[in-house]
């Protein structure tokens, strides 16, 4: 019976061999075209070097021809078994481009909201492990600053359209495959789409979580067809953009002497001691060490490899990927310990992903995704902060690397440990981070009920864990006194005993449970097109490890949302959308938890108007968009349940607020003596240690957006420009300035602040074909400026002292007028109240003209550390197999104060190097020292030196304010794709060899360290400059 069935089937479906040739429109054979039989999993072949193919199939099946960059074709096998195909290059038109938003995939042309979609390939050349570093200058609407260059910490902080709050948090919501997940651990090669949702029309559905903007990332999924294997291998050599340079020993010593002599203190070094130092006659007590070259390598390698497999049949498709990145640290290591453990600042991460799509029925698709990452960051025993602190702290003359008798020198313990010891002799730490992300999606097409109705349900479950393991030790450490005994012996101070390796660890973890259900309905009736979305989301994040004893820590952070969207357009010409989110955050009091966030948006596609369509055919797209809506921000800096109060028992305290102890016990207070006279039954009272703030809720942002989309001359010129205006109210902040008459002992919080922010972002692109050259020029820009409208602050006589009407985090300080010329100048100037001052010290402006320079003269100077403008400019040229891509990135209007022991020379005594260039080329030198009155220049580049700090000079003022503007050659990407024939000869589809240079040149007025580095002291891992060599192979 069974046998019969099979043979009957075989008869009905006769197998034939089809052959043929595939060419392009110029009749050139196409090599490596993928040919598969539709609905027959696994069957498939590719064309050979001559473009020929041969495939066995049953009759009356369809063959699918697909090739990257060409339109796919499906051809039915009927009578002819020789099928020659001519494939056409696909014309990617903006009209066909799609956008991923929170309510699914949408045609870009029908968009009424401000959404940036990013070509993921533009982000891939970034040589670090986090995609966040690729955002600045590549993604209009996003402002970003790289925090550090250290592997594993080299991520960028970013803000969508800048900052518009000073309250609970300004970070964007990042959703990976619809679920909130970290952006930093994603494997860049897994990303299919990257979109930035900027205005209320797209973020309102996120309700109380969307005000800071949303980033949506989707990962790649399998495509039907023959298996495609892509392998990419990159070797990256990293050095540093700008590494601070330090003065050498003799220079340091003479500056040190000057800093003391000029303030009437005895010099540290006598002339003969300077000679001993210069000649290197006593390296134990007069060392001259270049700590920087001792501790830092010239460069370090990063290795990155990625393998992915993609394919599938008609009923199931898969995308499988694995990647490995190994970022090498710049620290030098002790070669003798090399085989035991690694003290370098390395970071390694393994990523995997398995995205499977299964067609359960013709209308039902189940998608199961599992992804994970395991990251390991390494650091020397005392940690990176001590490393940089010590490197910047140890002057070249303070200590030798080792004393000549082998003893280990140390300035002090902890952060003042010898940098070489910090880097190599104190053990090592490991920080592990592991993530497992799983989600299952079910998509059902309900066309059989009513056309255009679809359902999507997602269940997600993520686990993130981290554990830190510290393995520390240190050697016995010594400090040589600065004078030898009469017989030439060194006098030793014992700084610390040795410590054998010991271990400590800590761990943390969270679990996220996620559910999302969405109904979509799209249908057109004639020229009327309707769409509707209803969506329900539930999200819970639970801390699972190290809960401590606070009950609150174990309670999940839950969010609930009902969201919807209704769209209408007429002839794709006039669009109107209504979006809403009705969302709840459990962090607030009952009654304050749920909020309604609506948004409306309209668009007018002028290019669809007949008068343009008929007369201006070169105008492919010209659309005007406008949106207006409300979005919320429920972040409270991680604080839980502000509506709850906290009580504590009262114990007796002295006038300074310190506990009074009786035999080590606290004494109850604030209670009542219940016993009769002479007896003791005293019971203490209770007080509020934190009063409740019952009405605290989310911030509200009212966002308006006016946008223009333009595409001209068959997409040769494309541009988007969005103007935005946002008013954030109800900003969460502590109320420090409630009148005392209220009688509170603690500070409640409330939604009281308001900020407005305005700006624009946009991009343009120009494509041109010049013979065989394809040229693309592009640029993008993001500008945002905010202003505090309202803030809980005290009433100031001088309005400029208020933060209101200034930017969030506005830099403030005194206005420096140069240096005092002489004592007459001091006598004739307003009195300065910060500390003693002499000629050559900084002279400040008495802003309020009250005859005294004090903190009331601090005014807004410069702008903010975070740039208000970020832009990118680039061009790419391709010619046959060769492609060159150049990208510049810049930041405008950013100012910051520099300070710290290497900037304020000798402010911490002899702890601290002197950074090269920090004093400029004409520092103020007393004529008594230089013998030249012209060095007493009131406009000198650095004030009179001082030893042990100088309260008058070393304070925030325009003198120390620096310009953080920069422009850098961010990327130069040169690639060569092997000719098809060659690639096919070695059984591959595509081979590309490429070389990428990153951060090759930086132009900035600020030269001491990288202007993008967040540290105002410069004591941080410098940002990388790198060269990548890579190879990608597609099979």
């Amino acid at each position: 019976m069974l046998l019969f069935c099979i043979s009957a089937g075989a008869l009905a479906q006769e197998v034939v061999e089809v052959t043929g040739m595939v060419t392009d429109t110029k009749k050139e054979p196409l090599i490596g075209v993928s040919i598969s039989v539709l609905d027959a999993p696994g069957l498939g072949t590719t064309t050979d070097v001559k473009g020929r193919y041969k495939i066995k199939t049953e009759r009356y099946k369809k063959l699918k021809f697909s090739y990257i960059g060409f339109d796919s074709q499906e051809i039915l096998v009927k009578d002819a078994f020789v099928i020659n195909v001519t494939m056409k290059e696909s014309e990617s038109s903006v009209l066909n481009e799609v956008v991923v938003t929170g309510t699914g995939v949408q045609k870009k042309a029908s968009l009424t909201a401000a959404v940036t979609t990013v070509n993921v390939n533009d982000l891939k050349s970034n040589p670090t492990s986090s995609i966040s570093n690729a955002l600045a200058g590549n993604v209009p609407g996003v402002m970003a600053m790289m925090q550090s260059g250290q592997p594993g910490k080299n991520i960028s902080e970013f803000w969508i359209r800048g900052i518009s709050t000073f309250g609970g948090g300004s970070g964007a919501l990042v959703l990976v495959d619809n679920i909130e997940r970290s952006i930093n651990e994603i494997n860049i090669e897994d990303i299919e789409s990257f979109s930035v949702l900027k205005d209320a029309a797209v973020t309102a559905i996120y309700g109380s979580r969307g005000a800071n903007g949303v980033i949506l990332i989707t990962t790649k999924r399998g495509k039907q067809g023959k298996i495609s294997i892509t392998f990419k291998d990159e070797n990256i050599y990293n050095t540093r953009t700008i590494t601070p340079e330090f003065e050498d020993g003799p220079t340091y010593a003479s500056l040190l002497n000057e800093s003391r002599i000029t303030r009437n203190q005895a010099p540290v070094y006598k002339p003969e001691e300077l000679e001993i130092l210069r000649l290197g006659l006593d390296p134990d007590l007069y060392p001259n060490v270049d700590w920087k070259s001792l501790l830092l390598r010239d460069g370090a390698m990063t290795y990155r490899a990625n393998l992915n497999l993609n394919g599938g049949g008609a009923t199931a498709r898969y995308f499988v990927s694995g990647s490995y990145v190994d970022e090498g640290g710049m620290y030098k290591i002790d070669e003798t310990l090399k085989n035991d453990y690694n003290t370098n600042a390395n970071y390694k991460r393994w990523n995997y992903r398995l995205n499977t799509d299964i067609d359960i029925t013709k209308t039902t698709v189940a998608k199961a995704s599992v992804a994970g990452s395991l990251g390991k960051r390494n650091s020397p025993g005392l940690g990176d902060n001590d490393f940089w602190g010590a490197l910047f702290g140890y002057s070249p003359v303070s200590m030798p690397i080792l004393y000549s008798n082998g003893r280990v020198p140390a300035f002090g313990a902890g952060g003042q440990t010898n940098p070489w010891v910090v880097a190599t002799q104190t053990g090592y730490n490991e920080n592990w981070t592991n993530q497992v992300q799983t989600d299952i999606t079910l998509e059902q097409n309900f066309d059989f009920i009513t056309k255009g109705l679809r359902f999507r349900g997602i269940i997600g479950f993520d686990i993130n864990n981290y554990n830190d393991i510290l393995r520390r030790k240190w050697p016995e450490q010594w400090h040589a006194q600065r004078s030898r005994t009469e017989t030439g012996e060194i006098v030793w101070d014992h700084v610390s005993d040795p410590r054998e390796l010991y271990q400590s660890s800590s761990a943390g973890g969270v679990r996220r449970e996620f559910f999302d259900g969405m109904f979509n309905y799209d249908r057109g009736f004639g020229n009327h097109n309707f769409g509707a979305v209803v969506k329900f989301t539930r999200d819970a994040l639970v801390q699972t490890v190290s809960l401590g004893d606070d009950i609150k820590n174990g309670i999940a952070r839950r969010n609930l949302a009902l969201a919807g969207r209704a769209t209408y357009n007429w002839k794709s010409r006039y669009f109107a959308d209504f979006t809403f989110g009705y969302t709840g955050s459990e962090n607030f009091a009952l009654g304050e938890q749920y909020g309604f966030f609506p948004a409306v948006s309209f668009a007018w596609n002028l290019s669809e108007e007949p008068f343009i369509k008929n007369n201006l055919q070169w105008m492919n797209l010209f659309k005007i968009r406008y949106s207006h809506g409300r979005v919320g921000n429920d972040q409270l800096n991680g604080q839980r349940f502000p509506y709850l109060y906290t009580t504590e028992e009262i114990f007796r305290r002295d006038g300074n607020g310190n506990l009074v102890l009786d035999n080590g016990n606290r004494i109850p207070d604030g209670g009542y003596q219940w016993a009769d006279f002479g007896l003791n039954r005293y019971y203490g009272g209770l007080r509020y240690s934190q009063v409740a703030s019952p009405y605290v809720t989310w911030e509200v942002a009212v966002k308006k957006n006016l946008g223009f989309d333009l595409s001209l001359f068959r997409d040769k010129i494309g541009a988007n420009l969005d103007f935005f205006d946002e008013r954030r109210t109800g900003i969460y902040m502590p109320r420090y300035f409630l009148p005392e008459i209220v009688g509170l002992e603690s500070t409640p919080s409330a939604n009281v602040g308001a900020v407005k922010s305005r700006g624009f972002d946009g991009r343009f692109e120009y494509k041109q074909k010049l013979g065989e050259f394809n040229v693309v020029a592009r640029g993008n820009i993001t500008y945002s400026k905010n202003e505090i409208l309202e803030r809980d602050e005290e009433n100031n006589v001088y309005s400029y002292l208020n933060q209101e009407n200034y930017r969030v985090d506005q830099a403030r300080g005194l206005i420096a007028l140069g240096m005092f010329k002489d004592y007459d100048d001091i006598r004739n100037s307003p009195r300065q109240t910060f500390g003693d001052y002499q000629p050559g010290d900084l002279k400040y402006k008495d802003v309020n003209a009250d005859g005294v320079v004090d903190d009331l003269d601090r005014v807004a100077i410069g702008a903010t550390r975070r740039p208000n403008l970020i832009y990118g400019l680039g061009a790419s040229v391709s010619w046959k197999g060769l492609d060159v891509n150049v990208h510049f990135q810049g930041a405008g209007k950013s100012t910051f104060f520099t300070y710290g022991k290497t900037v304020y020379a000798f402010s911490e005594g002899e702890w601290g190097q002197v950074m090269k260039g920090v004093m400029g080329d004409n520092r103020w030198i007393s004529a008594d020292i230089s013998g030249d009155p012209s060095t007493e220049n009131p406009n000198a580049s650095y004030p009179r030196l001082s030893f042990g700090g100088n309260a008058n000079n070393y304070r925030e003022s325009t003198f120390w304010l620096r310009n953080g503007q920069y422009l850098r050659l961010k990327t130069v990407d040169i690639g060569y794709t092997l000719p098809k024939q060659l690639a096919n000869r070695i059984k591959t589809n595509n081979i590309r060899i490429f070389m990428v240079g990153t951060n090759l040149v930086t132009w900035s007025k600020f030269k001491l360290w990288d202007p993008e580095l967040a540290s105002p002291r410069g004591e941080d891992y410098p940002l990388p400059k790198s060269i990548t060599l890579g190879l990608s192979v597609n099979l």
Partner: protein
Amino acid sequence: MSATQIRRSDSRLVCWILSAFIALILGMGGCKDDKGTVVKEAAPFDPSKPVVVSDFLPKTGGMGQRLVIYGQNFGDNPADVSVFIGGKKAVVIGVQGESIYCFVPRQAYSGEIEVRVGSDGNAVGKAQEHFAYQRKMVVSTLAGYRNDRGDEPWKDGKFKDPDQNKMASGFWNDSFMRFDPKNPKHLWVTFDGNNGLYLINFQDSTITKKRSDFDRPRSVDFTLDGKYMIIAEDRGNEDDRATYRLSREKDWQDREILTKYKQCNGASIHPVNGEMYFNSYSKGEFFRFDLNKYFNEGGVGDKDFEKLFVVQDPGWEYKIFIHPTGNYAYIVVINQHYILRIDYNWEKKRFNQPYLVCGKLSSSGYTDGVGTSVRLNTPYQGAFVKNPAYVAEGKQDQYDFYFTDKMNHAIRILTPEGSVTTFAGRGSSSINPNPWGYVDGDLRQDARFDRPTGLAYNEEEGAFYIGDRENRRIRKIALEEMPVK
């Protein structure tokens, strides 16, 4: 897959080679010295060439002065180089071909500089100019040592010896010193917290523990006739011994209790009238005990002492130092950082009420100045020293008061007018800003102490001896000796 793997390793190799190539082109690679030390390599000594001394820095100074000698062909090995200054061998610290770093030796009076290089020392270079050697007051080390970990034992022994085990050591505690009035070669020392009576014997340069049955001895003094040594002890109870006497004829091995009371910080004998004054910490009481009556009439009980007054408050730790003329005494309040004066009433043979001379109650600090502007930090022991200038001027009071200022790590001078200056210590204002340390040499330029406590002055010799607690040494301040001819 195996094919891919092979290709992968190939590609890595290619990439590596290319990376290296590109790194070189960009100049990011390169070969730098791995070691951070910036030291020039010196050429070794060449016996065929002469040794030349061309110059030196500085041109003048005293013993221990760091001296840099410039010239040629000094080689690179300090062991092969000997430097003689004024005929004395200098300690050589470093040699770098064309420069030498050495210390100016003691008594290098003539100042000729001579450099000998090579194992046989035949190559000699001489400086044209002479080093101008200055003789001056210096701090030096008499005895004791501190090992690197600071755990050397209490031990009798010689002042100095090449073998550390033969050296006297210890001196871990606050000390109190007193020269034997009958024998200026004997300096007696007690240490608070150590049970011994120590003799620093200058005749044979040894330190010996003479007794081991004390309990917190706080002071040493002698009766006017020198027959008895008076020791004060700091003990807890009212019936514990406070002061007792040891007799010379018994070689100080006996003990006769004079008074019993608690917490005595020291006892002093009036240098003219001979009565004893001592104190008690617990209430700040100042007592008088009539030693003359005790010796002459007898029948004086160990509680027969008289309370003259109370200094301020309970818990006042102080010592009494009586002027050689007997006209007044200083009360040095150790734990409250100030010095009081009490004038002697010759009629009543008693001291009057105290008044402040310098420092400020409970206010520690380091300030030279006059009276209350002065800041002290735990002043400890003092000695009256005759000032020849006062004698020449015919001043009424011819003595300055030199005292250790323990936590200021200095020896300070209090003049009769109440002005305080720093005599020695807190030198080498160099690399570390701390004022303590162990440095010999010029009193203020170089010398450092670390918690000096005991102090004794030898008038004949013009020398101070100081118990330098944390340095675990006995230090000496004196004019540099003249060469023995």
